[in-house]
């Protein structure tokens, strides 16, 4: 049992770490090209700012500890989004649009799925300051682009709208605890239990809540929803949003699920999840969370998405490892220049420390730098 890691925690060995890092660079470069500025919030901060505006599930998922300096409770972030919302609302104070992105480890007390890691490498992009659907369209398109770059093109981008749930729950006059239970039942499309749960809710809302569990599929469910859901202004607005998205994103494999609420309870509008082929769970989650900024003193329209880079890297084909060039430890005056030239050209050059003959192939070398006819030449590695 010595030196085993905790459950759902793992190392990334060279091959995997290389994949993770090259993917991280590719995706952050893509974010940069789209105008998303990188931020790096801390790994831990005071608990109340980490979990503000979020539901019980995020609190349960957060590792907590006591700060020896202040005596206050601190948490290790389980989700970066609230931190970035804090930065936007409280520190940047921009009046217009802010586009931010991030990549860093988060910790989960409990794995989110059976095979998930408890230390996802969370990568995400957030767009603040624009309430219109143009922002939702931009981040959904950015997500599709990110998945394409990661070589796991989304087979399905499933879109929902939390506004429908909030409108119906408010109409039913639910207290927050019951609303959370209702959220969970809808999330599981647990129709038999839902039917029991809403037995005492007014007829029109009950029928609508039950209908939410069946309203999924292509854009035609939006018409069906208009027929089956009550004529509330919030319902009409949500369905209009979804129709506009369906029209704007017609070239992507978009589908709809009006009972899918996604995320950590802080979402407030359009939400979405991306699925790759043969993945037993969503690869990326995102959506609108306009109310989180309010908790930090400045309500700001907000939308974005995040994903676990480890999960994506797992799906990347193994790239053949780049072989290194073995250079002698000492040579003439030209050796150092030659090594520097090769390294600048992107080659890996290692020096042959004495006493390790015969192990260089295992160390990843496949070529060597040799003095031949008065100049340095790269040749296949011999005698290893």
């Amino acid at each position, binding site marked *: 049992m010595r030196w085993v890691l905790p459950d759902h925690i793992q190392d990334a060995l060279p091959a995997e770490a290389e994949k993770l890092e090259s993917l991280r660079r590719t995706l952050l470069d893509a974010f940069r090209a789209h105008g998303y500025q990188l931020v790096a919030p801390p790994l831990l901060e005071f608990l109340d700012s980490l979990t503000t505006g979020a539901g019980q599930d995020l609190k349960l998922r957060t590792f907590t500890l006591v700060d020896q300096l202040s005596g206050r409770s601190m948490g290790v972030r389980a989700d970066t989004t609230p931190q970035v919302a804090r930065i936007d609302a409280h520190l940047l104070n921009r009046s217009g649009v802010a586009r931010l992105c991030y990549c860093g480890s988060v910790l989960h007390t409990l794995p989110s799925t059976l095979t998930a890691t408890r230390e996802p490498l969370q990568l995400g992009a957030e767009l603040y300051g624009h309430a219109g659907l143009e922002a939702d369209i931009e981040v959904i398109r950015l997500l599709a682009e990110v998945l394409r770059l990661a070589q796991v093109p989304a087979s399905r981008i499933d879109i929902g709208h939390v506004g429908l749930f909030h409108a119906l729950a408010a109409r039913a006059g639910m207290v927050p605890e019951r609303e959370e239970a209702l959220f969970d039942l809808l999330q599981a499309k647990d129709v038999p239990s839902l039917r029991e749960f809403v037995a005492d809710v007014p007829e029109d809302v009950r029928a609508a809540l039950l209908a939410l569990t069946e309203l999924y*599929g292509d854009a035609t469910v939006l018409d069906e929803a208009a027929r089956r859901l009550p004529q509330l202004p919030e319902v009409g607005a949500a369905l209009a949003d979804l129709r506009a998205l369906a029209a704007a994103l017609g070239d992507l494999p978009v*589908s709809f699920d009006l009972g899918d609420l996604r995320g950590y309870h802080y979402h407030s509008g359009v939400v979405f999840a991306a699925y790759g082929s043969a993945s*037993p769970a969503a690869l990326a989650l995102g959506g609108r969370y306009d109310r989180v900024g309010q908790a930090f003193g400045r309500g700001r329209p907000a939308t974005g998405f995040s994903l676990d880079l480890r999960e994506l890297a797992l799906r990347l084909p193994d790239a053949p490892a780049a072989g290194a060039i073995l250079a002698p430890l000492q040579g003439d005056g030209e050796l150092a220049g030659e090594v520097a030239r090769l390294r600048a050209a992107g080659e890996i050059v290692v020096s042959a420390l004495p006493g390790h003959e015969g192990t260089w192939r295992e160390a990843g070398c496949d070529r060597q730098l040799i003095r031949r006819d008065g100049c340095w030449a790269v040749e296949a590695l011999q005698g290893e």
Partner: protein
Amino acid sequence: MSSITLALSKGRIFEETLPLLAAAGIEPTDNPESSRKLIIGTNRPDVRLVIVRATDVPTYVQYGAADLGIAGKDVLLEHGGAGLYQPLDLNIARCRLCVAVPRGFDYAAASKPGGRIRVATKYINSAKAHFAAKGMHVDLIKLYGSMELAPLVGLADAIVDLVSTGGTLRANNLEEVEDIMPISSRLVVNQASLKLKRELIQPVLDAIAGAVK
């Protein structure tokens, strides 16, 4: 190219599922009672069945090893249901989850506030939730079978178990003192499968829903 896999257990659930599958136009090519195959084909090339232990059904579906599954509510409550949709009560394999004690044991007195009893069960989560809701302290003993034996040999004061006819309880001189909940089997669906293979899964769901009594 795409196909769907349904996980279920053999025995009562399999027998009572057959008419529902038939309504969806699915007929197994083998009978798991006589065949030793764990993967059973059907008359439809794009549908296959996998035969697993009842308690393993939610796990197979959660991992996506099966797209659909049929599992008792008892099993789903113990599993927790993470990653699953549970859209349909199939109304089959019906029974009840109950508290039972040896005949003559004063359960009413033992379950007064402040009382503490030992309970043997396979259904730890459900039992814990039930007694916690009553404000009762219990010591739970996890057993994997023959629950009825535990009170008879002094391992526990009471048991929490599934009862369908009550025959086993009577034969062992136990009686049912509390109904926890009615149990029946449900159709569960992997969440990603429903998104990715909706064209295949939805007609099966609809046909089964139409055939449920």
